[in-house]
């Protein structure tokens, strides 16, 4: 494995690409008890249409998540108990972009790693087990629909993307999951769970060579590329619809505003683009930003306010979300901030803060392993963050904001308390 030292960060990373195409990335953490391994496939809720062996698949919404649930089944029973029996905590999640399987343990790391590699690369779906899961997943879907903060987020993505795969919930709907069969799950596994489409990322006091060895032994040796995905027509940067308001049982209105940022950059440029966006959002809407503080002091925003950047299906988008009695006024003030010049001293402090946030992220094994996988798939080295960040200027940030954040780009979803509509 290739060792790269990052003296300013007080760390080293070991990376390699195996002959079968798997990206392996290990960050040793001497003196830590906890180890975490994430085995991630570059396949998520948005990857629904593809061609495999000459056959065209148009899979139901929620199939990647359904597959995640069913991967834990093995011919010799559920794999959960094996991890639990070693005191390891295993779990998985599905986003629009990826499906991640991971465990955290305080011992028997290599045994746990082998179990992880084995179960994620072993498809085992029977009619009976797939059927049994339908009720559990339906409950999860219903729970999300009852959750106002999830609902307001889904409404916003629907406004932005409409019929594009990013416009449907990652978990699908109770109706869409009725069409999931063992055959569909097997096809999706065969298509996207190939080593060349996956990354294995580890943090902990472990031997990097042992990680690579385990992957070489457990996974198929031949290199097969994952099929191209068809996301349909380019979604453009204008929202499909501008606003939606509905009611649920909530105490105050919740809002979620979103904007499409267009195709996501690839390679080293992706890191620069993400950091520029992060700095821009911090300068405009962060907890130190004038626009946020004015709204906070007026009581129009509170600590629940947050923003985030996301990438999936080759697209980037951002969302701003929180609670407010006057969401429209909040959004118009937040977007008006784009017109204000950014104070250079303030900008330098924001850079310092983003740098501090990155340093602290290195202690968070969840963030660390998932961000490494993200870097593997997008083609950048996460640990080059300090240098790239250093090169971004105030003018870069202003230009980025001016290009992407015009007021007309935003869609706004609102969930109001019931009595308000009456």
């Amino acid at each position, binding site marked *: 494995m290739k060792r790269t030292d990052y003296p300013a960060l*007080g760390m080293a990373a070991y990376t390699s690409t195996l002959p079968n195409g798997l990206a392996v990335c290990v960050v040793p953490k001497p*003196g*830590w*008890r*906890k180890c975490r391994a994430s085995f991630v496939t570059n396949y998520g809720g948005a990857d629904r249409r593809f061609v495999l062996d000459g056959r065209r698949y148009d899979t139901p919404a929620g199939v990647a998540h359904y597959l995640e649930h069913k991967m834990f089944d093995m011919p010799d029973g*559920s794999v*959960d*108990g094996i*991890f*639990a*029996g*070693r*005191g*390891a*905590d*295993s779990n998985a999640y599905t986003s629009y972009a990826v499906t991640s399987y991971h465990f955290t*343990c*305080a*011992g028997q790391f290599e045994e746990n790693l082998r179990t992880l590699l084995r179960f994620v690369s072993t498809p085992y779906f029977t009619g009976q087990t797939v059927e*049994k899961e339908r*009720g*559990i997943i339906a*409950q*999860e879907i*219903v*729970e999300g629909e*009852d*959750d106002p*903060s999830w609902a307001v987020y889904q409404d916003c993505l629907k406004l932005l993307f409409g019929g594009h795969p990013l416009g449907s919930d990652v978990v699908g709907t109770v109706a869409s999951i009725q069409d999931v069969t063992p055959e569909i799950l097997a096809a999706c596994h065969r298509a996207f769970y190939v080593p060349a489409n996956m990354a294995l990322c580890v943090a902990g006091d472990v031997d990097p060579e042992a990680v690579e060895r385990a992957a070489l032994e457990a996974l198929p040796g031949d290199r097969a590329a994952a099929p191209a995905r068809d996301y349909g027509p380019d979604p453009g940067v204008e929202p499909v619809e501008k606003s939606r308001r509905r009611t*649920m*049982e*909530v*105490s*105050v209105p*919740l809002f979620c505003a979103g904007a499409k940022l267009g195709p996501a950059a690839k390679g080293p440029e992706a890191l620069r683009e993400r950091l520029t966006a992060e700095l821009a959002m911090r300068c405009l809407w962060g*907890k*130190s930003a*004038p626009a946020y*503080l004015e709204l*906070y*002091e007026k*009581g129009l925003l*509170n*600590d*629940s306010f947050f923003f985030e950047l996301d990438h999936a299906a080759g697209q980037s988008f951002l969302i701003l979300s929180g*609670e407010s009695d006057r969401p429209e006024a909040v959004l118009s003030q937040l977007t008006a901030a784009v017109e204000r010049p950014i104070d250079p001293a303030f900008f330098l*402090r*924001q850079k*310092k*803060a*983003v*740098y*501090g*946030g990155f*340093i*602290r992220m*290195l*202690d968070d*094994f969840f963030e660390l392993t998932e961000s490494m996988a993200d870097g593997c798939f997008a083609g950048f080295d996460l640990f080059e963050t300090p240098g790239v960040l250093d090169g971004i200027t105030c003018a870069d940030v202003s230009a980025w904001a001016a290009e992407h954040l015009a007021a007309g780009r935003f869609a706004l979803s609102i969930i109001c308390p*019931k009595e308000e509509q009456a």
Partner: protein
Amino acid sequence: MERTRRELLPGVFLTYIGTDKFKTSILSLHLLTGLDRQTAAQNALLPGVLRRGTVASPDLTALAARLDGMYGAHIEPSVRKLGEIQAVGFAADFVDGACLPPGEEPLEDMTALLGELLLAPNTRGGLLLPQYVESEREKLLHQIRALVNDRAAYAQSRLLRLMCPGEAYAVDALGDEETARAIGYVALTRHYRALLAASPIEIFYCGSAPADRVAAALTDALAALPRGELDLDIGTDVRLNTVEEGPRTFAERMDVEQGKLVLGYRLGEAMEEPDMAALRVMNALLGGGGAAYVNSRLFVNVRERMSLCYYVHSALDVMKGLMIVNSGIDPADYDKTKDEIDCQVWAVKEGAFTDEELRTARMGVSADLLTLTDQPDRLESFWLEQNLLGLDYGPEELAALAEDVTRADVMKAAAGIACDAVYFLSGGREEEDEEN
């Protein structure tokens, strides 16, 4: 990891953990006071008001600039309920000095800011600023009302309120709307001064700076702390028996698809001399979180075997002597789920579990405690609880004890468990109810 505990000033204790493992340092300070309906909202409001501005940094803009300058450090109001003790103060985290160029270390800047927030708020005529109090009060009210947005947390809060009507434990960490609405800035200033003078204080630091340097920085920052007669008899009243002979049942309606079923249990005689390791293993065996969860009785039987719910788990409050089981279910499965949960609790009491289940539960508790030593925020919660319980063993020692827990220990820990209340939140409109 080096750990020490020392009294910096009368009633002000510092728990120090020295380690160079982390790139993040944390520092927290909690004023401890008895949980009481009359004062809970005032206590909960204080850190928010103090966080608005100090004499040196009078508003949020000035405070934010200081924190950004410390490489994006955070210091946020903290309000917690630990048994029947309310702990209010601040929790800070910042890049560890060892990761920054010399001269850029934020420790002393952070202790100074903490001291200012606590002792030198922005006041006029000696009173907290009315506009800060009003605006934070509105946010507190909003936060109290917003509990309903998190269905599971709301259902648990309702259960506790209904289950413990005569106990301080019924009070939420944030207090209630009625008392919060009545808070004015003059009364809050008076309350603030009284709370500062009377409350024991717990401070926690975890990072690479030496203990003496941390202690000196804090002693300096807190030099102006008024110390009056300390309220040292705060604690938690543990009720061993259920309120009535059988469980009381409560049902409420909300427009939701998924029903939330919450069961509240008293731990009973196990609380006379609590065996913390056995209680933890017992909970892990039943349905506590962590590594053993997927092998636990509730997960395996209620969720996997009978497919009765999407989630079901149990949690302990060892300070109050309670166990709460939370689940999200299809309302049609109410009776079946409740019976099955009861049945699994009974199995644990009777020792009707396999050696493998016991072994997994022990391993899970041990692994959970050991990995906790890698997370400063979890170390902080662990030690705050240990300090309040008067226990001085660390996570590694508790992990070792957990590994030795026997079947008999688990059965003893579970022997007195009794269900005291059942709460069910489900969909459907009120008028339909009346027709039925």
